[in-house]
C-alpha cells in the first residue's frame, strides 16, 4: 500500500508539490478519452457517495464536478445553501457532520469564506475538495488552466502567462499563480492598481500597468471576470472606462504578430473584460478549458479515492491483480 498520492483533501495548489500537480495533469489525459466513449462511464468510483455542497451560486463548476463524478460511477447528491438547513442557521460543521452520519465518502465544497474547505477537511473524515473558497483558491480551475496551456503549447515550463483584470479578489488567479510558478512558467499580472494585490512581485510575478505591454510580453492571456459589483465598491470608475483601458480587444491583439492563446474562466462579460471577436476567435481556448475541466476533476476524484490502509493487507493476501 503506497500513501495516497494527494493526501486526504484538495484545498489549494499552494499545498501541492510540482510532482503532485504533474501527476494530476498526467492522470487527466486518459480521462479525456473516457468522455469520448459511446458509454461515457467507467466503474472506478462505483459505490462511492459524493456530496456537492454549494454555498454560492455556480453553474459551470457544479455541473462539471457532477459530470466527473457520474462518469466515474459515483453516486452524487447536490446540496445548495438556499432551501437547505443552512438557511435555518445550521453551521458548516454541523451540516457536514450530518451528511457524514449518512456515510458519505467525499464532499465537494464551494463557499464564500476563504479557508472554508480546509476548515471542513480538518473536521470530517471524508475527502474534501475545494471548489472555490472566498478569495483563497479554486484549485481545479487552476489545474484545468494548466492542462489547457500544456495541451496548446506542449509544455508549461518557460511559457509566459499573464492574468488580466481583478487579480485582487480572484481565487482563480491565486490558484493559477501557485500552479504556474511551481511548474516553471513565467507569470505576469495586469490590471488597475486598485485590483492588483500589493507586494505580488515578491512571489516572482511581474506587474504590467498597461494592457499593451502585457500583450507584447505574454504567450497566454488568462482574462479574469470583472465582477460588476467592484464598480459600486469604487475599485474602478466605470465598466466602459475599464474596457477602454484594460479590455482585451481584437485591435490590441492585432498589433502583435505572433498568435496568442486566450483563456477565460467564465462566466464572461463580453464587452467588459473581453471583446466578443477575441472570445470567439481562432486563438481562444475557452471551450477547451471547459472540456478539460471534466477530465481534471475526474483525475482529482480518482486520485483522492480509495487506498484504505486497513483493507490493504487483505488484498495482499488474496493476490490482487497481476
Amino acid at each position, binding site marked *: 500500500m503506497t500513501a495516497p498520492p494527494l493526501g486526504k483533501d484538495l484545498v489549494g495548489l499552494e499545498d501541492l508539490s510540482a510532482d503532485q500537480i504533474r501527476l494530476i495533469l498526467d492522470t487527466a489525459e486518459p480521462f479525456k478519452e473516457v468522455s469520448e466513449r459511446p*458509454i461515457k462511464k467507467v466503474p472506478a468510483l462505483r459505490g462511492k457517495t459524493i456530496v456537492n455542497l454549494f454555498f454560492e451560486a455556480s453553474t459551470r463548476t457544479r455541473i462539471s464536478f457532477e459530470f466527473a463524478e457520474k462518469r466515474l460511477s459515483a453516486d452524487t447528491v447536490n446540496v445548495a445553501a438556499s432551501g437547505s438547513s443552512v438557511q435555518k442557521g445550521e453551521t458548516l460543521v454541523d451540516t457536514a457532520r450530518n451528511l457524514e452520519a449518512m456515510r458519505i465518502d467525499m464532499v465537494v465544497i464551494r463557499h464564500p469564506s476563504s479557508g472554508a474547505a480546509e476548515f471542513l477537511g480538518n473536521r470530517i473524515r471524508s475527502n474534501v475538495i475545494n471548489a472555490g473558497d472566498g478569495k483563497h483558491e479554486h484549485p481545479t480551475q487552476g489545474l484545468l488552466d494548466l492542462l489547457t496551456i500544456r495541451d496548446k503549447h506542449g509544455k508549461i515550463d518557460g511559457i509566459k502567462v499573464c492574468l488580466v483584470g481583478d487579480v485582487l479578489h480572484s481565487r482563480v488567479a491565486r490558484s493559477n499563480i501557485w500552479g504556474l510558478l511551481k511548474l516553471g512558467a513565467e507569470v505576469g499580472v495586469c490590471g488597475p492598481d486598485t485590483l492588483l494585490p500589493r507586494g505580488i512581485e515578491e512571489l516572482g510575478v511581474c506587474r504590467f500597468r498597461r494592457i499593451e505591454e502585457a500583450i507584447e510580453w505574454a504567450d497566454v492571456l488568462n482574462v479574469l471576470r470583472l465582477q460588476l459589483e467592484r464598480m459600486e465598491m469604487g475599485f474602478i470608475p466605470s465598466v466602459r472606462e475599464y474596457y477602454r483601458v484594460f479590455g482585451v480587444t481584437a485591435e490590441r491583439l492585432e498589433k502583435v504578430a505572433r498568435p496568442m492563446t486566450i483563456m477565460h474562466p467564465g462566466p464572461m462579460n463580453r464587452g467588459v473584460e473581453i471583446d466578443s471577436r477575441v472570445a470567439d476567435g481562432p486563438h481562444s481556448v475557452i471551450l477547451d478549458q471547459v472540456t478539460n475541466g471534466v477530465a481534471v476533476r475526474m483525475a482529482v476524484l480518482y486520485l483522492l479515492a480509495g487506498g484504505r490502509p486497513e483493507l490493504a493487507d487483505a488484498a495482499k493476501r488474496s493476490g490482487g491483480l*497481476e
Partner: protein
Amino acid sequence: MSRPDRTIILDARALARALQRMAVEVLELAHGTDDLVLIGIQRRGVELAERIAKLIEQDEGVVVPRGALDITLYRDDLETVGPKPVIGETRIPGELTGKHVVIVDDVLYTGRTVRAALDELADFGRPKRISLCVLVDRGGRELPIHPDIVGKQVKVNGGERVDVLVEELDGRDEVGLVRQGGPA
C-alpha cells in the same frame, strides 16, 4: 544479464517461435482475418498484440485492426490498493459489435485483469466472440477464466514471479522467472 535469482523460461528466439505459433493459432481460431480485432492489455500486452498482428500481416497480406486497453478504471481493488498513478491509453479501432476480438496479454494469473477487460470491452460494443491469448499461463486462477491460446505454460512456486521483457519497452525479448525479494 543472468542472475542466480532469475531463470530464463523463453529467450529471444524461443519467444519469437512462440509468437509465430500463436499468430497461426489466432488465424485458425478466427477462421481468417475478416472479423478479427486484436486488443492488447496495457502495457506489455499492447506490444505483443502488435507483434502478432504484424506476423499475420506478413502471412496473409492483410492489415489486422489492433487496439489497446487499460483496465485500471475497471479494477476491483481501488479501495484496497489505492489509485494507480499513471493510467495508460485505451484505443479501440472502430466498432467492435459483430467482431471476433482476441484479447492479448503477457501473463495470465488470477484472471482478474481479464475479468476487468471483459467488462470494459462490453462498454464499447457487443463482439460476436471474445477469445483470450496469453504469452505465459502461470496458473493460480481466482475466477473461472480460461485462455484459448497459450505461448508457454509455466509452473510457478510460491515467492516467484513471471517477468516478461519486450524489446520495445525493455530493450530485449525475454521471459524469466524471478524469485520475489531479490532484485527485479
